C-alpha cells in the first residue's frame, strides 16, 4: 500500500479509512504495544491507591476559528473533556497550548480564551499548565490549539468493545452532525435561516448520570470525525457482531439535514462535538434514556437500534423498508472540522 515516496494527503486526516491506515502503519507500529493498543479515546493508567487516571490529548485546527454555536476555544475544552468522559472518567485538569500566527487579531484571541475559560468552568476542570508560541505569517492558519486532559476513572464502569454482544441496544444523546455541518456552512458562506449550529458541549454529566447503571454499559464514544458511521463501524470491525439502526430513529436537526442535503453529504458521517453514543444491555436502555431525557443535554436522546449477529456489518433500515450498509467515510469529507 505504501511506497517510500508516498506523501500525506488531506484525506489522511479525515477520520476515515485513510486515517486509520496511517495511524496503524506509522503510529501503532511504533507505540502500539501498551496503553495505545486498540486506540481508545483516552488512556486509562494505573495510579496510586488502586485508582486509575484517564489521560488524553487533542489538537484543534478548525477553520473558521469562530462558527455558529462556538469557537475553537470551547471546542478545545469540550473535545478533551469528552474523550475523558466517554472513557468513564471525570475530567479534572487541562493543559492549553497555543500556536499563534503573526497577524492574528488580539480581539479574536481574547474571545477564544474567554470561551476556554467559560467552558472549563462549566466542566469543573482547571487549566493548570500551558504554552504559547508565535509563528510567522503563513506558517499556521490563525490559531491552533492543543489541549491535554487528566481525569480520574469513575467506579463501576468496565467498558470494553469486546463486551458488546448481540441484543445490546445502541443509544444516542441527541441530534447528530450539527458541529460538522455548522462549520462547513460557515466556511462555504451558506447563509440559511435556522441553519445548523455547532453542538459543541461537554458530555461528562451524561456519563455521571448513568454511573448507577454503569455495570450494564458496554461502550461509550463521542461521534466526532467520521460521525456515527465511523463509531459504529469501528465497533463491529473484525468482530462477531453487527449493528442495525433505523433511519426513522436517527435524530438530525432541520438545519443540519438541509445543509447535508444541499451539499450531498451523508449526515451519518458528519461530526458532532457534544453528543455520545452508548451501547448497553437491553435491560438498561429504558432507564438510561429516561435519565438522559431529564437533562438539557440529553433531552432528545433516542434508541437508534441494536447489536446483531451480522458479523462486521452496520446496516441501516431505510424509509423504504429496504436495508443498506452504513459506509465508513473514506478520506477528505470535511478537512479541518475540529
Amino acid at each position, binding site marked *: 500500500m505504501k511506497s517510500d515516496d508516498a506523501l500525506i494527503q488531506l484525506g489522511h486526516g479525515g477520520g476515515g479509512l485513510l486515517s486509520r491506515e496511517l495511524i496503524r502503519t506509522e503510529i501503532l507500529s511504533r507505540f502500539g504495544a501498551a496503553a495505545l493498543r486498540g486506540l481508545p479515546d483516552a488512556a486509562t493508567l494505573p495510579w496510586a491507591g488502586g485508582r486509575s487516571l484517564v489521560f488524553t490529548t487533542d489538537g484543534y485546527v478548525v477553520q473558521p476559528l469562530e462558527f455558529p454555536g462556538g469557537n475553537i476555544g470551547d471546542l478545545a475544552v469540550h473535545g478533551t473533556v469528552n474523550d475523558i468522559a466517554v472513557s468513564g472518567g471525570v475530567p479534572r485538569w487541562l493543559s492549553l497550548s497555543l500556536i499563534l500566527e503573526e497577524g492574528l487579531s488580539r480581539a479574536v484571541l481574547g474571545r477564544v480564551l474567554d470561551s476556554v475559560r467559560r467552558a472549563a468552568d462549566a466542566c469543573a476542570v482547571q487549566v493548570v499548565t500551558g504554552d504559547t508560541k508565535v509563528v510567522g505569517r503563513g506558517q499556521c492558519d490563525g490559531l491552533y490549539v492543543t489541549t491535554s486532559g487528566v481525569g480520574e476513572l469513575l467506579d463501576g464502569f468496565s467498558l470494553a468493545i469486546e463486551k458488546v454482544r448481540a441484543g445490546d441496544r445502541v443509544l444516542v444523546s441527541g441530534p447528530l452532525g450539527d458541529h460538522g455541518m455548522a462549520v462547513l456552512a460557515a466556511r462555504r458562506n451558506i447563509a440559511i435561516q435556522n441553519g445548523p449550529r455547532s453542538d459543541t458541549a461537554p458530555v461528562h454529566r451524561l456519563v455521571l448520570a448513568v454511573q448507577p447503571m454503569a455495570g450494564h454499559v458496554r461502550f461509550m464514544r463521542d461521534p466526532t470525525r467520521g460521525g456515527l458511521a465511523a463509531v459504529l463501524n469501528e465497533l463491529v470491525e473484525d468482530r462477531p457482531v453487527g449493528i442495525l439502526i433505523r433511519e426513522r430513529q436517527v435524530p438530525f436537526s432541520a438545519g443540519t439535514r438541509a445543509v447535508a*442535503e444541499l451539499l*450531498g453529504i451523508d449526515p451519518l458521517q458528519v461530526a458532532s462535538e457534544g453528543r455520545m453514543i452508548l451501547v448497553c444491555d437491553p435491560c438498561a436502555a429504558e432507564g438510561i434514556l429516561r435519565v438522559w431525557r431529564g437533562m438539557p443535554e440529553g433531552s432528545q436522546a433516542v434508541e437508534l437500534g441494536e447489536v446483531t449477529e451480522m458479523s462486521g456489518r452496520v446496516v441501516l433500515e431505510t424509509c*423504504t*423498508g429496504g436495508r*443498506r450498509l452504513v459506509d465508513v467515510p473514506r478520506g477528505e469529507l470535511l478537512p479541518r472540522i475540529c
Partner: protein
Amino acid sequence: MRYIEGFRNPEVAGAIRRRIDDLAAGLAGEGRVVNVMEVCGSHTMAIARYGIRDILPPGLSLISGPGCPVCVTPSGYIDAAMTLAERGAMVVTFGDMLPVPGSSATLAECRARGAAVEVGYSPMCAVDLARAHPDREVVFLAIGFETTIAPVLCLLEEAQRRGLKNLSLLTAFKLVPPALHALLGDPSVRIDAFLCPAHVSAIIGAEAYRPFAGRYRVPCVIAGFEPLDILYGLQGILEQIGRGEARVDNEYARVVTPEGNRTAQALMRKYLQPVDAVWRGIGVIPVSGLGLREEYAVYDAGPRFGLRIEAGSENPACSCGEVLKGKIRPPDCPLFGTACTPDHAVGPCMVSSEGTCSAYFKYVSVKGKA
C-alpha cells in the same frame, strides 16, 4: 426540508411497494422478467442508499446505466488535466474527479505532489479563483451531462462579462440520448424499460425520450431522486409493461417539462457544437458529446495550451465498461472488492460518488447479495 420529507414517507413507500409486488407477480405469472435500466448515476446512488434493490420482488431487476459523468470521462482526459496542473496552471474540479485513476496517477496524488488542484462546489469557484490570481492560468475541468453543462457555460458568460483572460475550460461534455441509442442498438444488452434521469430531463425535456418509446418500444419513465419518486417510477413502468404499452411518462413533473429548459438549451447552442466523444470503458459514441465552437476557442484549454487529449491507458482487467453498459453487476467483476476498492481503485466506477461499483461497495453487500 418538510417538503422533502414528504417524498420519504415510510407508509406511502409501503403502499407503493405492495402495488409493485402485485404488478410484478402478475408479470411473473406470465413468465416475464423485467429489466429496468436506471440511466443516471444519481438514481443508482439513491437506489442503493435507500435499499431499494433489497425490496424489489423477484422478476423485477434494476440494472445500472452509463449516467455517471466521472465514470465515462476517459483516462486520457485526466492525464491532460494533470499535465496542465504540473505545468503550473490552477486546475479547478468537482471533488469527484480527485480519486479517479488516469493512466498512471490521480489528481489527488498530483495535488499531494504540490500541483494546484482546487476543488469547487460550483463552477463559479473558477471565476473567483481567476479573479484572485490574475497572474495564473485557471482551467476548469468541464465534464458532465446536460445538467452540468449549462451551469458551466454560465461560468463562461461570467468570464466574458468580467473580461477574464486567464480562465479556460478543458471540455469532455457528454449527452445522454446518444448513449441510450447506443445501448438499445447493442444486442448483448437486454433493456425492457428506462428509468430516465431527473435533472438531465429537466434540461432536455420529456420529449427527448419519445424516439425510445416509439422506435424501440421501450417504456420510459422520468423520475425524481427521492425514494418515493423511484418507487413510483417503477410502478409506472410495470403498469406500462403490463398493458403492453411503451410511452414516455413524466413522474417528475414538479421539475421536468415536455420541452425542457429553453434557456439552458439556447446557451448550449450558443457555445457548443456536437462532437464524437470517447466514453471510458465503452469507446467512441458518434455525436455523443459537445465541444466549444471555433469562435470560443480562446476559452478551450486544449488548443489554448497546445494540448491533445490522448487515448490514455486503462487497466485491461477493469470491467467498468461492462458495468456502465449494464452487462454485468459490480460483484460480477473479478476485481470488485479485492484488487479494486475505494482506497485503491482500478476503475472510475469504484470512486465516483455516482459510480455503480461505489454504490454497491458502500451500500449493497447485505443479505449476501454481493
